[in-house]
């Protein structure tokens, strides 16, 4: 370690941190560097990357996904536009794990993720939000655009052939799609995700390998409902 670095830095065991990250699969020429500034940059890059991405697939993780979705929802409300959300679940994935083991299951997840990356648009954000469940945010698009983009991704995954070593697996995925209403006043990422999940389960119930969709409008209270609700006297509580 060179002498011209600040004193406190001498006590930092950067090499050990580099070894840990390298063993965790963060291969990079900088991980074997002896230069502390290169080592530190490698550690910072690795940790930033790990905090945002899912380790298995390289897609964004669930925490980051919610942050992006909330940002895109806010943007769509501001611009009276639409933001789409797809939820994708691999059908009968438990059978894959039970029959071939988790290492094959993990590789199937990786190949589905790779296929999703290939078929989505550059501005879309794909995330792994659960074991075999994925989500794709389709920002700044009309409902027609969202449907077109989602249909293309769905088609590329149905059926989907994954070749893992010498095992050939033919899989399907069920997809739920929702999009925000341009007239909506508020919706949160988790409500939107629940709605997309519901559509995905609908796709599962209707035979798997399918896509179900709807826009989020029915969740808002209509003017008819409002006037029906207000058609009651509130005065009586004061008068008994």
């Amino acid at each position, binding site marked *: 370690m060179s002498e011209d670095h600040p004193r406190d830095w001498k006590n930092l065991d950067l090499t050990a941190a580099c070894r840990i990250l390298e063993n965790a699969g963060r291969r990079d020429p900088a991980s074997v560097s002896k230069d502390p500034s290169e080592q530190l940059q490698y550690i910072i890059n690795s940790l930033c990357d790990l905090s945002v991405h899912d380790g298995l697939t390289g897609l964004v993780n669930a925490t980051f996904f919610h942050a992006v979705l909330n940002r895109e929802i806010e943007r769509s409300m501001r611009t009276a536009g639409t933001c789409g959300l797809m939820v994708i679940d691999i059908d009968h994935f438990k059978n894959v794990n039970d029959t071939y083991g988790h290492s094959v299951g993990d590789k199937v997840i990786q190949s589905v993720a790779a296929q999703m990356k290939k078929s989505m648009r550059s501005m879309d954000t794909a995330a792994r939000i659960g074991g075999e469940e994925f989500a794709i945010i389709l920002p700044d698009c009309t409902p027609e655009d969202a449907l077109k983009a989602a249909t293309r991704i769905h088609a590329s995954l149905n059926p989907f052939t994954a070749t893992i070593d010498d095992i050939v697996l033919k899989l399907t995925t069920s997809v739920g799609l929702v999009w925000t209403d341009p007239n909506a006043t508020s919706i*949160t990422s*988790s409500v939107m995700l629940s709605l997309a999940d519901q559509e995905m389960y609908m796709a599962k119930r209707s035979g798997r390998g399918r896509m179900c969709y709807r826009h989020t409008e029915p969740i808002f209270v209509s003017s008819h*409902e*409002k006037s029906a*609700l*207000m058609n009651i006297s*509130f005065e009586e509580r004061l008068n*008994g």
Partner: protein
Amino acid sequence: MGSERKRARRYALLSGKGGVGKSIITANLAATLSTFGRRILVIDADLGLASLDVILGITPVSTIQESFRGEQSIEQVLQSTRGFDFVPAASGLPEGTVLTERLTAGVESAIAALEERYDAILFDAGAGIGDVVMFFAGLADEIMLVVTPEPTCLMDTYATIKVLYHTHGTRDFLLVVNQSGPSPASADAGERIAAHLQEVISSHFESQETDPVRIRLAGSIPVDTAVKHSVMRRRLLGETNPDAPATRALTRLAAFIDAAIRNRKTP
């Protein structure tokens, strides 16, 4: 879910609008249920603006947020008061309004560690339909909506029901009408509000013939100065005004919940 472990019945107390008396009802309900011999756990689920400790006249040593951060175990956070146990939350923490993995994992592990000891868990959730409120609603077996007979409150309650119906598939709602008119007429006013909500839902929600939403009135609490009196003294109604109309109404509400806990079919 498929586990055989004994599980406490979970109630989420929600309100579309704030300031309708949710926390006061939670605290008094828990205390009354414990006098019936029920083992009750109350979780302050209003993680942004917790206030149950204030109503109970307790100064928490630590809060559920400290257990999320691993600074305290959930056992250290747990407090006993008036025959029931209580998990306090911190107030004034904006992070409590954001649904993070740390929050969901923290709450789920706290419930898993504790719930075998109780007959029922009450979540005193925040107002509105934010992510954290919806998360607690998703954990609950029963949704109990607290409503006052005011136009804005009725509107917010209806919207809450609609959101829960669409996002969580919730079809059964318990209603507690608070400040439901002066004492003798309060039960009628409660019935009237519940019937009105039911009617608007039945005629406006989709697929009500096959999959109806049901609103059940669990209790009506009359307008009663005794409530303010007890809150100002940071005591419970049973302690300050054991014979007041509101106290008696809360006892009837507790009896309703007690019967539901006794008759429940699920493990």
